[in-house]
């Protein structure tokens, strides 16, 4: 296991580093429920500590809600094609969980991670939209959000359809079903295959991790019930046996609480990172789709440009008076085509960098998650052993 890698950016996270070093540190805290009834939502405090010139002051605090984060995500996705935009936590569909303490905390943590990843990403941290997000007043954000949603945001149903189209197109591409408007890059093919397979494996692991959390809760519950039953049984019995059963029951109940605690830890420190991993892979899939689009555009434009060129030559030969017009068209087309080619190449270049970064980051993220998992399980087991062990002399006393 290697040296610890901090994230790759130029900015450090710690405000305690010497003031000459540029730093940008963000935290998402203090979830508060606002509004009433159906329109109720959670707002978060986003605290930015920085010494960068473009930012206001050493510290700035703004209030943001989930849809603001979505805005930021979508803007970045639009502008930084080829970059794996850090994933957002899911929008919860089930109403009754929307305001559960656990859900709120999980979301807060995920949003915190989201913003920090952006802030530490070499490209993304330069984004104007990030600056806006971190600093603009709430009214401004609201306006931007509304603007975005009316012009650029599709309705959820449509979005889903688009996503499906992208998915099917991408999988078509992977499966080679599409007409040959796809890259013939064997390395890239392997990458795509890897990403798709990876998602399946990760999803399964995450599923079991989630179940494991549930099992901890269930075991805790049954220990509690069993403890109560033992105490009731102890109440029927005289002296030694009664006392022993009562002590036993009490210990069982204590351990039940411990297990519930561990279940929560497991959820936050192990299951959530796994889910995050899955989201990251899905984000890569979106980028893959973008790349396919860009490639197709480039090809189409190149095709069209060639046709136009042939046409232009024909016109020039016949000395048609439409030559001028055609020339202008051709030039524009050429520019577009070159632009498309540049865009595509940029995506390819970025993706190559991103993939390396992704693998490195996931090595660290998972390493940390594994460590927490193992530590948690070891601690739990030790607590259980200690608790039961401490009961033994008492049992002994009861039965002599």
């Amino acid at each position, binding site marked *: 296991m290697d040296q610890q890698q901090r994230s790759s950016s130029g900015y450090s996270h710690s405000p305690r580093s010497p003031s000459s070093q540029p730093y940008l540190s963000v935290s998402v805290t203090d979830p508060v429920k606002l509004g009433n009834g159906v329109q109720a939502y959670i707002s978060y405090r986003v605290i930015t500590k920085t010494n960068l010139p473009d930012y206001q002051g050493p510290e700035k605090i703004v209030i943001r809600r989930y849809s603001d984060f979505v805005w930021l995500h979508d803007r970045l996705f639009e502008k930084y094609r080829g970059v794996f935009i850090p994933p957002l936590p899911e929008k919860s569909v089930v109403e009754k969980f929307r305001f559960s303490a656990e859900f709120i905390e999980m979301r807060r943590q995920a949003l915190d991670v989201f913003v920090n990843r952006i802030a530490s990403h070499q490209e993304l941290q330069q984004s104007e939209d990030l600056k806006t997000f971190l600093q603009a007043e709430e009214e401004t954000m609201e306006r931007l959000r509304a603007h975005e949603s009316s012009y650029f945001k599709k309705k959820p149903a449509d979005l889903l359809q688009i996503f499906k189209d992208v998915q099917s197109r991408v999988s078509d591409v992977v499966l080679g079903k599409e007409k040959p408007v796809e890259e013939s890059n064997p390395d890239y093919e392997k990458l795509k295959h890897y990403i798709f397979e990876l998602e399946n494996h990760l999803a399964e692991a995450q599923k079991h991790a989630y179940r494991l959390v549930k099992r901890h809760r269930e075991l805790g519950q049954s220990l509690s019930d069993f403890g109560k039953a033992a105490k009731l049984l102890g109440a029927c019995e005289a002296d030694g*046996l009664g006392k022993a059963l009562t002590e036993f029951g009490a210990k069982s109940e204590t351990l039940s609480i411990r297990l519930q605690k561990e279940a929560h830890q497991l959820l936050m420190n192990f299951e959530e990172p796994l889910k995050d991993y899955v989201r990251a892979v899905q984000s890569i899939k979106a980028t893959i789709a973008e790349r396919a689009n860009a490639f197709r555009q480039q090809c189409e434009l190149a095709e069209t440009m060639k046709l136009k060129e042939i046409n232009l030559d024909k016109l020039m030969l016949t000395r048609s008076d439409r030559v001028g017009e055609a020339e202008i068209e051709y030039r524009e087309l050429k520019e577009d085509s070159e632009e498309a080619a540049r865009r595509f190449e940029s995506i390819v270049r970025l993706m190559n960098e991103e993939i390396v970064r992704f693998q490195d980051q996931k090595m660290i993220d998972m390493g940390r998650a594994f460590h927490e998992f*193992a530590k948690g399980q070891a601690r739990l087991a030790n607590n259980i052993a200690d608790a039961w062990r401490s009961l*033994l002399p008492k049992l002994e006393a009861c039965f002599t």
Partner: protein
Amino acid sequence: MMGSENEAESQVFASREEMENLVLDEPSDNTNGNGGSKSFSDYRSVMSSLADAHHPFSPPLTPADSDPLLAPQPYRDLRNPSLSHDNNNSYIEPPAYADVIFSPFDENTGSEINGIDSPGRSSDSSLSLSRSPSSSSDYIKITVSNPQKEQESSNSLVPGASTYVTYLITTRTNIPEFNGSEFGVRRRFKDVVTLSDRLAEAYRGFFIPPRPDKSVVESQVMQKQEFVEQRRVALEKYLRRLAAHPIIRNSDELKVFLQVQGKLPLATSTDVASRMLDGAVNLPKQLFGEGSTVAPQDVVQPAKGGRDLLRLFKELKQSVSNDWGGSRPPVVEEDKEFLEKKEKMNVFELQLSNASQQAESLVKAQQDMGETMGELGLAFIKLTKFENEEAKFESQRVRAGDMKNVATAAVKASRFYRELNAQTVKHLDTLHEYLGLMLSVHGAFADRSSALLTVQTLISELSALHTRAEKLEAASSKIFGGDKSRIRRMEELKETIRATENAKSVAIREYERIKENNRTELERMETEKHADFSNMLKGFVLNQVGYAEKIANVWAKVAEETSGYATDSA
């Protein structure tokens, strides 16, 4: 039965195989699930035969470096009494448990005492932990095996005579009253019913273990093989419980059942119809005043289920009048202590039932934990393989390596959970056993009630007879010279009164006898309950500690290996 162990076992094997087929680098150190289950035997007899200085319970300790998979470890009791008095902190020195490797014992070690094996053990490799038996202890072990189909040799004209299953019942014992030290007989279920009925008659007031159900429905519904196996297990348990009972073990009925070859020479219970028929023959005689006495020897049996319909009617009448409190019965259940005990027993049974249910839930939860942990491990192993195959970057290989450590640990932990659970089932089975015992207790109390009812019936009958005698006396004194027939009737009445007096004495003696049996059995049960529950609790707790330590070790290693990833915030 708790946790239907056999089912759980087969599931364990299915995915265990899956797991064992995957390549794991580590040599499977110490415990592997392979039949490593140890059963904790019933410590009743152990407790009584042990010297008091010893802590009655300690796990066998084996040297940590030996591989228990290869050979059964010799059992040694490392509980050194001198040590135990020195330390006042923990009951057993840590890290004793982590070294405890619950290894298979040879089933045939003479370490099983008094035929008591842990109930619910699967028929293959589980075994008993023993204390060194004191030399004077009796030993009897019963095994039920080898079910075979046999044909009813009938003279019926109908072809395809009914078949039934017989089981081979093998007994090993050193009790002198038995002829020989090892013998076997073939018995069918009907024979067991007969044995059970005869014991119920002969041992009124005792806590007789309830016999397995006839379960007519199940025999239709289940697969034949499954049903036969289930019955075999149930029969074995039943016979072992009988052998464990200090009084019943010495009964003639049991001896005959276990030893006599061929047809079981115990009176079979006649079916109710023919009893009714016999009773019907007697009834007219009784109704017309002849032979209306209860023969003394009949008095020692409850009226219900007997042939004496008239007696049945009388006792029914008596019980009704008892209930209505019309005539104050002279023999009241005055034993307040008994009534208190009975009430306590009811409360105990209620709580026991509750505890038994919760125990089942606990076992299920532990099993689920183990399963899910195993599945998680498997998922990670697949991921690891995948990453390694597709790896382009070193970071992928590193991640795959970390993941593999976690996966291996998860699989190990999963095995430990399953082993833990197998043991837990055996410990908590005590709760189930005692629920079964409650049935015996109810039976014994019922014996007492019916005996009391018989006494009360006879007393009121006597009182009625005396009244009749007085009336007859008064009437005949008015007629001078006396009526020959009336004098004869007077004689007969006096005869009846005398016989009834006899019957009453016998009934009272019987009632007292049953009361005494109840009392001694209650005492015995209290003692054994203390021992059994003590062992259950200690066994359960030690088991939890042992396995928790093992699981902790497994994860501590991985935590160590991944400690480089630890964040600054501790």
